[in-house]
Structures are given as C-alpha cells and as structure tokens.
C-alpha cells in the first residue's frame, strides 16, 4: 500500500517473490495497476488520498471481529506491549465529540495544544512555556513522551477513558460502506482484504505492510503511517520477524541523510536543533527541555555533549557549555518548501545544490525555477548538466521567450561530481544497514567527491576568516577541520570521519565501543551517537563487513542501533520471554544464562528479567518494565494513542487532500486537516474542493527505468531508451471523453502551471465511483524535464507547496488537474526524433 515495490525496489521485491513461492499472499492497494499489481493476488484500486479511510476501516474490522476478540494472543500483545490499557486525561475530546477535530485546537493559530491529550495524571513539560512559532521543531520529550510517574492502567480495557476504548469509538465510523463510498473499493473486495490480513496475523503468522512516498506525500502522510502502525500493533505484527511496516526508501542513503541529517531541524542522531523560540538559551536549558526522564533517551546529554566535542574540539569546554552557543539556532520552518519561498522572496541569497534537481523535483517547479533565478549565486554539484544548472537558458519559460537569460542574475557554478566507485564512503539503506563502498578508480577530470568539496571549501573559509574574532569568525575558527588528506585528489581521510562519527575518547583518540561509552563530561567526542559501534575499538570499519548468512546476516555491514536488524525485537517473545511460536522465533529470554538471546542483537537491556517492574522514580532504561519492548518510549509501550508528538491529533483521522474532488464523507464539517501547512500566495494558488475547472485526480509516481528527477538516469543512454519520453497514464474511459488516443500529445494543467506529455491510454487506470459520482484519476511520472536524452513535461510544474504538519512533506500523490488533447501553444520543443 502506498508503494510500488516491484517497480521501484525490484531487488527488494525478490524477497516478496520468494515468499510468494512459499505461499504468501500479496495484496496491492494502489490507484494504478502497476507491475506490483501484476504480481499480486489481489489488486485493490482506490482513490488517491483515501488510504487512511481504508486503514481505519481495517482497524474497525479487526477490533469488532470475533476472531480477534477470541484469540488470546492479540489480547496479550495488546495489554502488555501497547498503551491500550493506559487511561487518558478524562477531559480529552475526540473527533467524535467535536465534529472532526480534537480538543485543544486553536483555530487562530491552526494548531493543537497537545496538553489536552495527555495520559491521565501526567503533566506535559514543555508545552506550558511554548512560544507560538515553535511548531517547527518537535521536542524529543514530545515524541517519546514525558512521564513523571507510572501511568494509570485498566487492563480489562473497559474504562471509557482507556486508549483502547477511545480508539474503538474513534474508528467506529470507518466502515466497509464508507470505504466503498469514499475510496471506491467495493465492500466485498474490502472484506476480502480485511479477512486476509486478520487471518494471516497471530502467534504463528505475521502480516507486513510496505509503504513508500505514496503514503508520506500527503497532507496527512504521517497519520496514514501511524494508522498502519496502529493496525499492526493491534494485530501483534510489530517487533516480530515477517511483520512490521517497511518504509521503502527511495535513495541510496536517504535513511542515512536523516540519521546523519542534512535537515534543518535535526542534529545527527535525531537530536533536535536548538530553537530560539524554545527555552534553548543554554545547554542546560536545552537539555532540561529535551531530555525525557524515562526510556532510552534519558542518556541524551551524553550524545549532545559528545557531538559538541566532535564539532568544536578544544573550544568546547564545560565552562562555555561545550561551545553550545556556537551552534546556530532555528526559529521557523526552513524546510525545502519554505526555502523555495525564501529564495523567491530574496531572503535566501546563495544556494548549494548537491545532487538534487529542484528545477524538476521541487514542488510547484515553476516557482522553484523562479526562486533559482532570484539567487545571487548557485553552486550545483552534479554529474550531468541537470535542469537546475541549465534553467537559465533551457527552461520551458525561457524557450517560450517569457524569460530571457539576460534577465537572470544568478551566478552559477556547475561543479562536476564524483560517483560511488570513484570515491569511498557509506550508504545507509532502507533497512538501516550501513554499507561501505570502495574507491575503485580516480574520478575523471575535475570530478570530485562532496567530501573533497566541503573539506577544501572549509579550509579556504577558515583561511578567509583567520583572525576574525567576531562570533562568526569564532564559529568557523572553532570547528575542528583537520582531517588528513591523501591521494592524487587530496581527498580527506574518511576513516577519520568515520571515527569521529563513531565517537572516540578525547584523551587518546581511540574509537569507543558503542553508544553506552559516551559521557556528558567532555571526555568523549561523537559525531552521531546512533552510529556508535560502527567502528570497532581497534579501528575496523564494520560497514565494510561482508559476511552474510541465511537469517539476520549480522556479519554483513552494520545496522544502527548496535547492529540490530529488527527494532523493538523484544516483542518477538511473549511477556514471559518465550518465543510466541517456533515459526516466528527471533529473540527470547535465556533463563539459564539470564540474558536475552536469539538470532538478532536484542533491542533490550541484555540482562533485564522479563518480570522486572521499575520503581516509580526510576530513570532512563531502568524505568522500562521487563515486558515493555518499546524502549525508546517513556512507558516502553507501543502507542495506540499518541499522547504527544504529533501535531495533528493523537489518533489518525481522515482528512481530504488539500485539492480534492469530493467532500470529507467522514467528517462533513472538516474537509482538510485542521493543521495542514498552507502557503497562500499568488504564485502558489490552490483549487477549491470539487472545483469544476479541475475535475480529475492526478497522482505522480516513479518508474523502474528512471530515477527521481532524472539526473542519474535520463542522461544515461541505456536507461533513457527504456522510458524515452514523459507520458501520462489515462484510462480509456477518460481518453474517450476527450477524444485522446494512445500516443497523442496531452496538456495537463493546474493553477500553478501546465505540462505536456504523451498519452498512454491504459486500462491500468480506472474511473472509480466515489459518493455516487464517477471520479477519473490520471497518473504522471515526475522524472521528466527539459534536459537529457529522455525528456518530457515536468509533473511538478503542476503540484503545489503544501506541508504535512509533522514531516513537512508535500502532497504530490493526490491533487487535482484538468487535461486536454494537444500541445501547449508556443512550446518550441519539438517532438523528439525517433
């Protein structure tokens, strides 16, 4: 669901095929019939943007099914491993009570105060003194929960204020009938899916969900995923082999880019960036605000101080709060989409673009190119002359003559980049596995790695700022930047970088064993605590390990944290520590040796007895009970009810996409997510609900043969020829309405822009009956642009800037458009010669 695994992760899909050969059933729930659907036992076509309704209905089905209520496995898992029995603040009001919104909503600010969602008897810490702008950085305490005492429980699950009962009431309106009406999925088909999932979960069997950006790229993306997590917790499918929710990530180290983030609101290892709108004035304040008292995150100060030591070296001493002040602070949303606006509005003057292609891949790409054209300078590092580097003479608006190069003042540096195999380094794949790639050859010509570029830029800047004692001079001065260089190209020695990421003791520079060795007194330095252990104490880089096996392959690469392969794997054993079943054995309690053991590294304190109960004032991991697998959470439980940490409500709730052809059938009074972040501007207009000018639902997607915005595929002849031109998939029914035949030019437009594509008329798309009306859906791959061998209209010229309030991700998987036969007038770009 929300993923097209066979097309976008073909090699990952081979495990699905192997499972199928052993009899597994594959269900593909997707608006389009894709190559994944072709391999599935069941393809369920639903309206793009309605996933949460179907998931909610599955939850409702499961909770009201006899099988689920009868099988003790589910009850045992639920009461021990989730917060189903936890009592919630009796003042909490659900969407059932408030017509589609939760209690605590501030319509002025369009945001919630999560104070209203707390566990009964608990106090939130940070919310009381929050500045209002603070919506952009979520405190760690919010995400894992801040609990001062042990929560109240009702293990009979009967109390109307327990999470379970609230949830049951919340999902009661997610019915098969509603699924048929709002998703366009016939009830019989839905029941088939529900029954298949339910019967395939339990002691002996597990069901797994795979999703990708077709879930994240929605204004309620985070909630869709939480909804699935909820379902999986109900079914006991988390922390067990063959279970879970698999986030199929799309880029070689997109996981690594969030672990060791180049994201504005995070420091390495998911530490929050200091925020000027929170009480983050000093290191002590910051830690006071961010550090949970219970759960694994209690040791957070060790991580922060070690990071500061790694960043600022000798300049970081206890007396100056380990140079905490030198770290810049954020105070608003500087994520990708607001950055485009900052550029367009002239607030952001210079941009580095390394291996990204916002001129094609950016939402509202017309605006993205205007933003690029308004910069003072732009450094593009890539392997091809991508659209982001060439927009000033080759963009559609320049080709049409609307804009001339002599009007664009951006100074552009296009720097040739080196690729894997021309440089060494590590990637973190979708399963958190870190693998090292060797340097096989020297890069060609002036091609250089990013580490070379950043390192030498840093050297030059340090030179330029030499002797500058202003804060900005001290900031660059203090950063430790003395990596040895080697080789013909003078690349920095990455072993030293890995050592810094892993962490070392300051005194002797030796790598530390793992994260538990980190200290908050400045005696250790560590660039990313999460990756601690990647280097052994004798300096061996475990990302280079290449010893696989039939099961967890612990000898292949290194997986954070501590080389665990399945997180929360304590849940693969029953509360007493015995495997739920022989077939699904993974981690269990060895009563003789008094330790957790199994096929994987246990994600649990090694010697903690299964029947351990914490003292009320216990801190950190000591506060986690022996039967509570979710060690990162303050109460050690999987949260059915998210008492904090989400900005749009404690329970998943369906809201329509920002652009939708239908009203919200579940909550008629509340069309969109009450907290969705919108950018109301003349250059980013939105369509009204059921706008007759834009009757069709459009969804964007990727193809096996191309890669993201095309920089790594559209220029490569072998890939370009496989999908040589941008196209749009249209059902025969819709094509007939417009007189479009296969291969015709089609122009698609929204209020943001227009794009042309060749029609691929196919039954793989189908009109759906939604609320008694026929709704047509079209699909357009977003790979194509005006450069390279394989060209085509830019799908993102159509999309809008919208943000999911939690992840700040846009909504390109469901919006509305219109289309007609023919080409855009004045487009000089001819049909490509065949």
């Amino acid at each position, binding site marked *: 669901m929300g993923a097209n695994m066979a097309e976008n992760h073909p090699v990952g899909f081979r495990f699905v095929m192997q499972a199928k050969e052993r009899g597994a059933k594959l269900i593909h729930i997707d608006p389009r019939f894709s190559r994944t659907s072709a391999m599935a036992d069941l393809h369920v076509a639903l309206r793009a943007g309605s996933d949460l309704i179907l998931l909610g209905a599955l939850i409702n089905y499961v909770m009201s099914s006899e099988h689920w209520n009868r099988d003790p496995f589910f009850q045992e898992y639920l009461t021990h491993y989730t917060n189903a029995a936890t009592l919630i603040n009796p003042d909490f009001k659900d969407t059932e009570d408030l017509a589609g919104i939760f209690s605590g909503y501030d319509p002025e600010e369009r945001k919630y105060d999560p104070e209203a969602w707390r566990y009964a008897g608990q106090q939130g810490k940070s919310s009381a003194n929050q500045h209002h702008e603070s919506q952009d950085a979520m405190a760690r305490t919010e995400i894992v929960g801040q609990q001062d005492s042990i929560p109240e429980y009702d293990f009979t699950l009967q109390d109307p204020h327990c999470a379970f009962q609230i949830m049951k009431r919340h999902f009661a309106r997610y019915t098969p009938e509603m699924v048929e009406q709002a998703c366009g999925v016939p009830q019989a088909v839905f029941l088939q899916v529900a029954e298949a999932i339910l019967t395939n979960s339990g002691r002996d069997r597990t069901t797994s969900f795979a999703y990708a950006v077709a879930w994240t790229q929605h204004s309620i993306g985070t909630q869709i995923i939480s909804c699935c997590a909820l379902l999986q917790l109900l079914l006991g499918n988390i922390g067990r082999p063959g279970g879970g929710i698999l986030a199929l990530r799309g880029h070689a180290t997109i996981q690594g880019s969030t672990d060791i983030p180049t994201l504005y609101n995070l420091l390495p290892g998911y530490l929050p960036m200091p925020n000027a709108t929170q009480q983050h004035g000093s290191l002590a304040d910051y830690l006071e605000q961010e550090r949970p008292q219970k759960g694994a995150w209690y040791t957070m100060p060790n991580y922060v101080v070690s990071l500061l030591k790694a960043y600022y070296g000798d300049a970081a001493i206890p007396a100056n709060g380990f140079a905490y002040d030198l770290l810049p602070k954020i105070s608003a949303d500087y994520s990708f989409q607001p950055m485009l606006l900052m550029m367009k509005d002239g607030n952001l003057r210079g941009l580095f673009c390394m291996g990204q292609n916002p001129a094609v891949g950016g939402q509202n790409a017309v605006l993205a190119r205007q933003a690029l054209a308004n910069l003072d300078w732009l450094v593009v590092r890539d392997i091809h002359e991508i659209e982001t580097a060439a927009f000033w003479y080759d963009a559609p608006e320049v080709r049409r003559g609307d804009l001339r190069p002599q009007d664009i003042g951006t100074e552009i540096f296009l720097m040739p980049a080196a690729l894997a195999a021309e440089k060494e380094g590590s990637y973190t794949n979708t399963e958190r596995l870190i693998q090292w790639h060797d340097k096989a050859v020297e890069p060609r010509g002036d091609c250089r790695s990013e580490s070379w570029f950043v390192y030498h830029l840093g050297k030059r800047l340090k030179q330029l700022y030499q002797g500058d004692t202003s804060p900005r001079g001290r900031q660059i001065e203090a950063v430790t930047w003395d990596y040895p260089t080697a080789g013909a190209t003078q690349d920095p020695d990455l072993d030293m970088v890995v050592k810094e990421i892993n962490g070392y003791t300051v005194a002797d520079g030796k790598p530390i064993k793992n994260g538990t060795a980190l200290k908050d007194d400045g005696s250790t330095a560590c660039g990313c605590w999460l990756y601690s252990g990647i280097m052994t104490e004798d300096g061996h880089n475990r990302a280079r390990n290449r010893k696989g096996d039939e099961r967890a392959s612990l000898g292949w690469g290194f997986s954070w944290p501590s080389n665990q392969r399945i997180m929360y794997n304590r849940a693969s054993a029953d509360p007493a520590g015995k495997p739920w079943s022989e077939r699904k054995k993974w981690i269990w309690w060895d009563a003789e040796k008094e330790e957790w053991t199994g096929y994987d590294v246990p994600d649990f304190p090694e010697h903690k007895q299964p029947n351990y109960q914490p003292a009320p004032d216990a801190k950190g991991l000591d506060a986690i009970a022996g039967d509570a697998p979710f060690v990162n959470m303050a109460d050690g439980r999987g949260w059915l009810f998210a008492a904090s940490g989400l900005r749009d409500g404690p329970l998943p709730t369906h809201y329509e996409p920002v652009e939708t052809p239908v009203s919200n059938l579940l909550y008629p009074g509340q069309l969109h997510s009450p907290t969705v972040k919108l950018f109301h501007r003349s250059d980013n207009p939105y369509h009204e609900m059921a706008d007759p000018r834009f009757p069709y639902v459009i969804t964007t997607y990727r193809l096996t043969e191309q890669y993201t915005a095309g920089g790594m595929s559209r220029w490569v002849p072998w890939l370009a020829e496989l999908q040589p031109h941008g196209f749009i998939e249209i059902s025969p029914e819709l094509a007939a309405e417009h007189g479009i*035949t*296969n*291969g*015709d030019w089609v122009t698609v437009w929204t209020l943001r822009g227009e794009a042309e594509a060749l029609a691929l008329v196919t039954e793989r798309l189908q009109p759906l009956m939604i609320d008694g009306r026929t709704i047509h859906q079209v699909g357009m791959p977003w790979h194509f642009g005006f450069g390279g061998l394989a060209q085509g209209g830019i799908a993102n010229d159509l999309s809008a800037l919208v943000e999911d309030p939690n992840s700040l991700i846009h909504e390109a998987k469901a919006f509305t458009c219109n289309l007609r036969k023919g080409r855009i007038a004045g487009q000089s770009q001819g049909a490509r010669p065949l």
Partner: protein
Amino acid sequence: MDISYKRQWETRGSRRRAVPAEAPTSYYNLPVIHKAHWGWLVIIYFFLGGISAGSYVIATVADLFGGPDARRIRQVGRYLALGALLPSPVLLILDLGRPERFYRMLRVLKLRSPMSVGTWGLTIFGGFCGLSALIQTAEDGLFGSFTLPRRFLLALPSKPIGVLGTLFGFLVGGYTGVLLAATAVPLWAKNYLLLGPLFLTSAMSTASAAIVLVLVSIRSTSHRTLKRLERLDLIAIVLELVLLLAAKANLGPIIARPLQVGKLARVYRWGVLGAGITLPLTLLSVTMLWRKAPARLLGALSSLLVLVGGLLLRYVMVEAGHASADDPQATFAFARKP
C-alpha cells in the same frame, strides 16, 4: 478451473499500428521475424544471374542440337552469359555488410545453405561462362587467325565444357528461388517447392527473350532461328504462369496478402502477370498464328516485355517477401498448423 484466470486472447492495438480486424492475436502488430535487407542490388542480381544462366543453357543446347542455323544463338548466348554474369559478383559483394570480407563466403561449403551452394555454383559457373566465351571469341577470330591462344582454345572440348557448365547454369538459375524458400519468410517458405522452378523458368524465358532482342537488334539472323527461340520463350512463359498461379493458390489468403492488396499487388497483377506474361503470350501467339504479322517487331516487343516482366517478378517476389515478413499474421498462419 477458476473463471477469473481465463483470458481474452486479444491485445488492444495502438493508434500507430492498427491491428487488422481479423487478427485474433498480435503483439501491437509488430513483426514476428526479421525481414532480409535485400534491395535492388539483389533484385538485379537475381535478374541478371537468371539471364546469364538461361543464356548459357540455351547456347549449349543450341550448340548440341541446334544445327548450323543455331550458330548465332550459341554465339549470342555465350557472350550474353558472360556479359550478364560479370556484374553479378559486384552486385553481391556490394550488398554485403562488410564487402571487404566477401572471400569468407568461400571459407566453407555448406550443402544445406543455398547461399553457400549458390556462391560456389556461381563461382564455378563464372569459370565456365568465361571459358565458353573465350572459345567463342576464338571461333569468332578475335584472337587473330593463327595465334597460340586461338589454337589452344579451339582445341578445348567445347561441347563437354558446355554440358558441364549447363549443370551449373541450372544451379545458378534455380538456387535463388531455393535461397528465398529456405527462410522463415512465410511467403517464400510456404512455396518452397515452387520458387526454384519458378526462378529457373523465368531465367529461361528472360534469357531467350534477351537473346531474341540482341539478335533482332543486330539484324543478323534468320526468321526461323528467331522462331525457335520464341517457341522456347512461349513454353517458358506458359510454365511460369502455371507456377505463379499455383504458388499464389498455395499461399492462402493471409500469407498472400502482399500480392492481393497494395502497390505490390498492382505491380504483380499488371506488371508481372499482365505485361510480363499475358501480353507477350498474346503477341507470340499472334506471330505464330498470323503469318503476316510483323514478326520481328512483335518478337522484339514481346521479348522486351518478358524482360521487364522477369525483372518485376523478382522485384515483386523479394518485396512481397519483406512485406510478408513484416506481417505477424502471415508468420502466425505459417507457423501454426490447423
């Protein structure tokens, strides 16, 4: 059997390649097999090679059985055999993808490859053509009266040489048809028994027509000699017609499509059957039956028509083969037994 697994054997065609209405199944109407790349070089070679082979055969037969009246036929036949053959290797070599590697053809002799057999046949036949033409030149006194080469050439047994050469002449005249037949191209392969005879017959008809044309134009032969050649022409054309009609009937409606609709069909109908066969047949019959007819003129005209028809026949057969290779339905019909 679960009903949901039952399939409709049909594919929706795209706009660019409409699937013919009668097609039960096709993959976007794309060809199943690849067609040969042969064009005019090969068509002209087929034509000239046929004339050469036929001329040699006629010259030999005239030499052996024709008596003194047929001296002219023998003479023109031998020269024509060589003359028509000379461009052939050039045409064939130019047709190769790598002309400089032409000699690789003589690396092996493969009895099941008509091209290999034909190449060897052509090479040997070339020798016979040359030899017979040399003997002819010696007879014609082009080497002077008492020179050594002349004496040597006249001493050669020209009749046995002619007989041997004729065997290779038949091979060269006929293998081209077998060459086409031994492919996966439906229109050719379906008629594998008839293409060799057809090409050989056409070789004879075009050769005799060519000799007639030469004789008429040099105005040096008797009416009776011409009559003999025209008789041969007549027999060959009639046989050709029979073979063509049989071949067409054997193809069946789907494979014969290139010969039934479109430009090729028009060339086939009006050019090959009409101008190349029916018209000369009429003209020749006229001269045979109506003694007052301007025999030389009509003979020359019909010969010209036969030659044009022979060239068109090869053009149509080659091109129709290409069209048939491009037609998936033809391949399916050919490769699907009832």
